[in-house]
């Protein structure tokens, strides 16, 4: 790793690819945690909602172990109890957008999937809803973001330096970024095995044989998916990633 003697600090942050309500990245954790509180992510129980807009109420009944009348006020009050008042409105907005809440406006289409005839886990029903409602529309694209940040102390000057290694890939008309960043490394690894340059045998990680990872990294560079590496002086006057992580935990 170049000129740095002793590493004082390191961290790694990996990957992406998720959309929750269109074009909305912040708030993912809070919203998914709210879905969890409502019982929509339950994998082991089975429910039979009467229609898609009955899904939230059916999941709530299992979660709260009580029957909930089929009226908006009762359902909304149960939701507020479970997710907390501060998160109530954004949770209701998301459920309405997905078409799984009573009192939905006529402008919102119900999920296109057919509700199974047999009782089904809320998680499976909710997954069918998301697969329909969060599907990519023509012209929309995905994003893969891989980011490493290492803070190291320079052996020569003693100053802290920021070493970053990152990849930003967007999908295009031909393929999603996810398909390219998963499929191409695999293809380069397979080609290395087929051309006889890999001597390791059996199931092993990419680090087990130098021929695998050198060919994968060179191949990715060739197709424009190489990691971009930078060394910067430690930024002053701006919250560092490390500080923001610690602040989040405080």
């Amino acid at each position, binding site marked *: 790793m170049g000129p740095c003697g002793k590493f004082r600090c390191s*961290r790694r942050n*990996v990957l992406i690819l998720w959309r929750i309500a269109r074009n909305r990245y912040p708030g993912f954790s809070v919203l998914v945690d709210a879905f969890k509180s409502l019982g929509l992510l339950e994998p082991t129980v089975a429910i039979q909602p009467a229609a898609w807009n009955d899904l939230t109420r059916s999941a709530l009944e299992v979660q709260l172990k009580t029957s909930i009348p089929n009226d908006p006020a009762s359902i909304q009050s149960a939701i507020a109890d479970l997710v907390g008042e501060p998160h109530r409105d954004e949770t209701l907005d998301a459920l309405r957008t997905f078409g799984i809440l009573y009192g939905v406006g006529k402008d919102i289409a119900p999920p296109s999937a057919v509700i199974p005839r047999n009782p089904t886990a809320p998680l499976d029903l909710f997954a069918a809803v998301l697969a329909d409602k969060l599907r990519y529309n023509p012209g929309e694209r995905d994003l893969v*973001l891989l980011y490493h*940040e290492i803070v190291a102390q320079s052996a020569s000057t003693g100053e802290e330096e920021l070493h970053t290694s990152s990849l930003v890939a967007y999908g295009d008309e031909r393929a999603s970024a996810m398909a390219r960043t998963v499929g191409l490394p695999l293809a380069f690894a397979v080609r290395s095995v087929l051309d006889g340059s890999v001597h390791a045998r059996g199931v092993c990680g990419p680090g087990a044989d130098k021929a695998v990872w050198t060919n994968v990294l060179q191949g990715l560079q060739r197709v424009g998916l190489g990691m971009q590496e930078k060394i910067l002086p430690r930024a002053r006057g701006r919250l560092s990633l490390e500080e923001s992580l610690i602040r989040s935990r405080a």
Partner: protein
Amino acid sequence: MQEIAGKDILKQGFSDLPISDVLKLEGIANRDSLPYAETYSLGELDSLRTIVRGTLR
């Protein structure tokens, strides 16, 4: 060392990570971060101030 129970992983996310100038990103912890010190040849754990592996959203 900070430990986060699996059921709390979404509640205890990392908000507003300064990673991109154009994207507002948050993160959640992704499994045990500590073994990655060895994977990335970062030296002894005792010599590291911080090590975190996470998933960006």
